[in-house]
């Protein structure tokens, strides 16, 4: 059996298209991270201004001043230290961006003129204890990871679509007449496919997290995602979790997405006539739910977000609800992915064994 699995892994990783796709996802990971980093901008309100590394350093040093639990005193201090009142040129003060801390406090506590809007911490966040700090770097990383993981799900389709269907180009004759062709070989294909998917997902996740550490360090991982620059406030996850927790969920969701995609792609691979059809069919099945006109408030939405497309696009699934003990609804992605996988394994093996050679 292990011999058969090794042969299947070799077939998966020696496919030219798969190799190209894997290189592409790695290059994109690097590209997204570094371009986001380069585009960072910050101005400390006095003299220091810059992009890229300078910006990150300014943001980090500003954050260091106010680190800790968010209190009403801190809000007042930040409002007076950071939020400009004179040079708004008629622009709503909330939308003025000088640095991450300024944007964060303005987003929640400023009126259009840059004055305090009168809300207290508990008015905005309820009883939640909000730990503040430098979260901008990891939140950007998180956004990039979402893009990378979506691309990864397509790469996984490229990897898995040929697992059975490539044999239909003529080797099926030989495989299906051999002793283990309809049994152990089909199992080996499924195991190799899942193993390959898990390996690749782990690899891509590790690379992206490493790049995150390289660019932003470990600062901010224990801080709340709720006190963040304006772009992370509107339509973002409304729960008081830390950046570290956010990333943990995203990585879990990357894996659940990967194995769910592997599950249905295996089935399509076994039933489609050739690898091109399997590839196109799988990609369509994967992406199509984006067209579904389901409102976020509808109960159906809770089920739709369990589709793998929404795992990598973590915002929807992570915004559904917070269940007991700080756990998010998104945790349901795990049983759902296992179901996809189980059905995929069983159905694809059956379909391959029944395949009619022609």
């Amino acid at each position, binding site marked *: 059996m292990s*011999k*058969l699995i090794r*042969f299947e892994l070799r*077939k998966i990783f*020696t496919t030219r298209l798969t190799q190209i796709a894997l290189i592409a996802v790695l290059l994109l990971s690097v590209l997204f991270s570094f371009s986001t980093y380069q585009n960072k901008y910050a101005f400390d309100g006095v003299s220091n201004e810059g992009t890229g590394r300078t910006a990150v350093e300014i943001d980090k040093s500003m954050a260091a001043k106010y680190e800790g639990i968010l209190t009403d005193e801190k809000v007042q201090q930040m409002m007076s230290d950071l939020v400009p009142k004179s040079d708004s040129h008629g622009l709503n003060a909330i939308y003025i961006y000088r640095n991450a801390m300024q944007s964060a406090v303005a987003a929640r506590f400023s009126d259009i003129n840059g004055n305090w809007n009168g809300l207290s911490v508990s008015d905005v966040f309820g009883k939640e204890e909000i730990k503040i700090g430098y979260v901008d770097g990891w939140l950007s990383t998180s956004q990039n990871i979402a893009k990378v993981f979506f691309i990864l799900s397509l790469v996984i389709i490229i990897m898995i679509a040929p697992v059975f269907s490539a*044999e239909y*180009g*003529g*080797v*099926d*004759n*030989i*495989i*299906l*007449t*051999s*002793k*283990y*062709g*309809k*049994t152990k*070989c089909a199992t080996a294909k499924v195991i190799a496919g899942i193993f390959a998917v898990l390996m690749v997902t782990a690899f891509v996740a590790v690379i992206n997290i490493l790049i995150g550490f390289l660019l932003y360090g470990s600062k901010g991982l224990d801080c709340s995602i709720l006190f963040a620059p304006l772009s992370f406030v509107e339509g973002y996850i409304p729960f008081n979790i830390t950046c570290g927790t956010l990333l943990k969920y995203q990585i879990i969701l990357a894996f659940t997405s990967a194995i769910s995609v592997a599950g249905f792609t295996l089935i399509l691979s076994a039933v489609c006539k050739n690898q091109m059809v399997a590839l196109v069919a799988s990609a369509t099945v994967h992406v199509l739910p984006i067209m579904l006109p389901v409102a976020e408030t509808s109960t159906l939405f809770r089920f739709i977000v369990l589709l793998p497309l929404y795992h990598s696009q973590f915002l929807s699934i992570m915004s559904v609800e917070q269940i007991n003990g700080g756990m998010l609804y998104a945790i349901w992605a795990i049983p759902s992915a296992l179901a996809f996988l189980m059905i995929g394994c069983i159905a694809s093996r059956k379909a391959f064994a*029944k*395949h*009619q*050679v*022609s």
Partner: protein
Amino acid sequence: MELTTIELTKQYGSKTAVNHLNIALSNGVYGLLGANGAGKTTLMRLLCAIQTPTSGKIILNGKSIVGLGEKYRSLLGYLPQHFGYYPDFAALDFLLYVAALKGLNEKTAKRKSEDLLESVGLSAESNHKIRTFSGGMKQRLGIAQAMLNDPHILILDEPTAGLDPKERVRFRNLISAFSKDRIVILSTHIVSDVEFIAEKIIMMKSGQIIHFGKPHEITSEIDGQVWECSVPTNRAEQYTATLNISNLRNEENGCTVLRVIAEDTPIANAVKVQPNLEDLYLFYFKGENDR
């Protein structure tokens, strides 16, 4: 070992490729002859259980092959008429992969693969990628792959297609030596390939068996209907258009010797000759095909 088909039928839509076919095969070499589209490949696929019959069944030693599953397939070796391969695998790797599929242990797999590459004349190329192989080399690799598990039932679909004469002879010798106590079925259009090694000939037409027997037995059917005659070369073409010619040979004196299949004397000076399988084949198929 006895392999039997009972009322075996395979339909593709309205086309019946194999039609209520009954045959009992015991150990020996069988030559399967038939025009294009006669149903040879379909019959072989059914025997290999890679197509499900529309009706009827296949029985090995009293048991349906459907129920035998792995047990049946472990006895089986199959060379498809057309097959795929992994272009980036070396010949030896490919055989090792098939050996793993056939459940051979590592040592046996290696030994058998190397032996067979030797037998089909590919040992020098064993580490070359299959994408660099010529058609005939791929075909020989296909033959080697079919024999890896010393199959008791060896099914070869046009094994000599693409082989040069030297390789055809090598193949015939390989099969003759291998076939003892086994069922070997091979289809071909080159009648001479089976004339000498096949103990029995199966002739198929429109999905049915029209002849089954030893080569000399079945040729006796057309005893007295094969003629040879000499005609001027410039008129030979005219005769080929009207007569069923199985062979034609130009002589130096401006004459052509025609081998004609006909019930009565086709041309005045014709003499009767001993029929061979090719004559019989032409007698039945007259250049037509079933497609």
